[in-house]
């Protein structure tokens, strides 16, 4: 009897506690309501559209008149070699992006933090994040012009320095495409992505550095033992989120930088979904690709989160 009663009491206490916190924070809840509604409308309602993947969807017809086909579109998808090509390209470019596009901003943020001259620091920071606001259309134009064999600055430089005998057609070689995308992405996003790390570094307690200095730590030691561990939580959160987005790398840069010669290396999943799904009016097929993307993303996110939780007690969830 004792045990049961205790449980009852604890339950009651717990629920009344919940109610209490809710009551005392009701303004906070009210304020978050619009955002909950926003997420619900834009992120949860569209999931209803997933039903399309199991139909032969014809736009304009009401829902109950659509023909149900089960997993037909998924079977088609997994039988298409082009899909696996797109998957390979997506993963390759996102891993490259993760490897460089993630580490370089951290290194950059740390280096920038070490700069003493504050004007130089600010100017550099501004200049490096400005490209973030430039549209990919423009960036693609700049990259194509720079790599052009016809007076492009890169080829002129390489030939001028005697590294190449004659201009090299970078844009026509599939094997260069991934690097070109990764490098231009780094150029465009490095400064922007470094901001969050710079902010994290700025939040570190200066006393730690002072203490280290007193103990005779060099600049490098200070970075290693104070700065890096200090921003570790930030790094991990950003990394987990990035892994969640691995498969959704967008398609603008691939679409704009590619040409027919490098398509084999440029077609990413979203481009594939665009061409074979929406482009051909096969909405069901496109949706099937979308579902595949989402499921893989969720899986990756949970995986990364789980791993970090186990080894470092850090997680986003």
């Amino acid at each position, binding site marked *: 009897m004792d045990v049961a009663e205790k449980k009852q009491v604890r339950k009651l206490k717990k629920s009344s506690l919940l109610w209490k916190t809710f009551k005392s924070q009701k303004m906070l809840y009210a304020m978050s309501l619009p955002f909950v509604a926003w997420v619900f409308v834009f992120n949860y309602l569209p999931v209803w559209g997933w039903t399309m993947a199991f139909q032969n969807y014809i736009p304009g017809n009401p829902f109950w008149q659509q023909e149900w086909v089960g997993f037909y579109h998924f079977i088609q998808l997994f039988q298409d070699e082009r899909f696996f090509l797109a998957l390979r390209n997506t993963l390759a470019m996102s891993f490259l992006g993760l490897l460089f596009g993630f580490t370089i901003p951290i290194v950059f943020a740390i280096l920038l933090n070490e700069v003493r001259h504050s004007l130089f620091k600010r100017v550099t920071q501004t200049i490096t994040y400005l490209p973030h606001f430039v549209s990919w259309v423009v960036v693609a134009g700049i990259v194509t012009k720079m790599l052009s064999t016809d007076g492009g600055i890169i080829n002129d430089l390489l030939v001028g320095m005697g590294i190449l005998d004659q201009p090299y057609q970078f844009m026509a070689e599939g094997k260069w495409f991934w690097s070109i995308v990764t490098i231009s992405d780094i150029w465009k996003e490095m400064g922007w992505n470094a901001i969050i790390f710079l902010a994290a570094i700025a939040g570190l307690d200066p006393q730690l550095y002072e203490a280290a200095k007193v103990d005779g730590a060099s600049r490098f030691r200070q970075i290693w033992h104070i700065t890096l561990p200090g921003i570790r939580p930030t790094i991990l959160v950003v990394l987990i989120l990035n892994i969640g987005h691995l498969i959704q790398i967008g398609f603008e840069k691939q679409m704009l930088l590619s040409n027919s010669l490098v398509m084999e290396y440029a077609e990413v999943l979203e481009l594939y979904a665009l061409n074979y799904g*929406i*482009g051909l*009016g096969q909405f069901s097929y496109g949706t099937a690709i979308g579902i595949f993307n989402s499921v893989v993303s969720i899986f990756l996110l949970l995986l990364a989160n789980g791993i970090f939780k186990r080894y470092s007690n850090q997680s986003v969830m």
Partner: protein
Amino acid sequence: MRVWEKSLQLIFILLLLLWLVACQNSEESGSSEDNQTNEESTEANGSSSDESDSVTLTVFDSDTNPDWVEDMDTPVGRKIKEDTGVTLDAEFDIEGGETKIPLMTASGDYPDLIVSKGAGQLVDAEALVDLAPLIEEHAPNIKEMLGEDGINRLKWSEDDPSIYVLTTSPVDDQAMTPGYGAWIQHAVVKELEYPEIKTLDDLKNVIKEYKELYPEFDGQPTIGLTMNTDSWRIQSSFLNSGFMMTGASDDGEYYVDPETYEATLHYRRPAEKEVFQWWNEMNAEGLVDSEMFVQKSDQFDSKLSSGRVLATIGPDYLMYNAQEALRENGMEERMYGVYPVTLNEEYKNHTYQSNGLQVGWGISITEDCEDPVRAIKFLDYLASEETQIMLNWGIEGEHHEIVDGKRVIPEEEWEKRNSDQDYLKKTGIGYNFARFAPRYGDGVLDSSGQPFTTNTRELAIANQTNIEKEVLEAYGVELWQDLFPLADEFPVKPWGAAYNISIPANSELQTHNQRALDITKQLVPKAILENPNQFDAVWDEFMTSLENANIEKAEEEYTKLIQEKVELWSK
């Protein structure tokens, strides 16, 4: 000190805000004035037309239009607004509606009018209004222009004889400028003393000789041959060279046998391999621009405009920008003439073969349009004789004059037409509005016996540059057209143009076509850039990839579509 600084900041912010507000105000007052004048003009007209209440029709057009002016604020645009009370709120697409139209069908929100390149999806989504009764009742001008046969061709299919798409193609067109050919700089042929240019080998020799003579132009290396291969343009320039050089006319990706109506993916014709082999040789000899398959459209234009590209192959509409720029910069000897080149003399250039009335691509009224009658009346207005004349010649007294009952464009106006790149934008003449309705083609005469378009033979000749005249004279003709075999030498294609035949959405054929196109876009350029001794291997790979992609089945289905169309139209 602090306070002082703060107040300075405040003043600055206030000034900024004031300035913003002021800007907005001035804009508003500007536009309200406009409104007033518009109202006045419609009022003034109200008595003459019974449709004085103005209405705005939204329209989506699958093609770009750099000449469009918002609110139709051009002389011609204002006149149209005045006459019909209709203002078009237009959206122009850059990729042929390939993404936007599917998105529309997905969302179910349509503009009032859609200009599409194939309306299969829209019809399946039941988005379009049947135009047949509307045309019958409200569109005498369209009926007159297209004739009964033409209207018959507009019918959708055997099972569904509704009319969903009103063609926007020219009627009875005998284009003054050839639609496809090899374009060579006047300076090149002049320098080489007007050699005969009939085959691809002739073309190669010309380019080679001239390039050896002048390896540099203006301090930059001369480019022998380049092409515009940016996105879909690779089909209309480079890939089309396959059949254009081997005695066929443009049927999209398929070649249609004129006797059996059997469709073959055109690359699978043995003759075309030789054409692409020629490209491969050209590349191996360094006569082709190394950036040909990489460059974007604007790079192509700027290369041609610099005057250092000796030749290109492609449709006329990809040449306009460069030709105009060259003319404007006074580099007339670097402008291009067009020659009917074929693989060898066995083949005739089929550029001028008539498709009959082209249907399939055109304008449709959607279910979302509140007043389809008003819309069809507007389209009918565009198709009327007076409007057609205005769209080509401009407004009387402003852009052309009538002398002795004939329309004449004054000298200075011609000067503007030829050299001002923004002429169409400033006046609203031309394709700006002509694109929304069927129109009379070049060479068609109006009720007074004068041609509808300004592309008359006389005007075309008057319009030539001196060097162009010189070149043409050397070849013993008056116009580029005269070098080509003309339409009367060929039968009219009973299936129209195959690329106009709409493929049912969601069909296997559509997927097969897309797959074949993907393979083609990748492997044909690859074959061209390979070593000549590797060409055969890559070409074989191309052929087997196509077969693996079920191309034979696609050909069968396409054949069926074409045969159905021929049957439907011959009734």
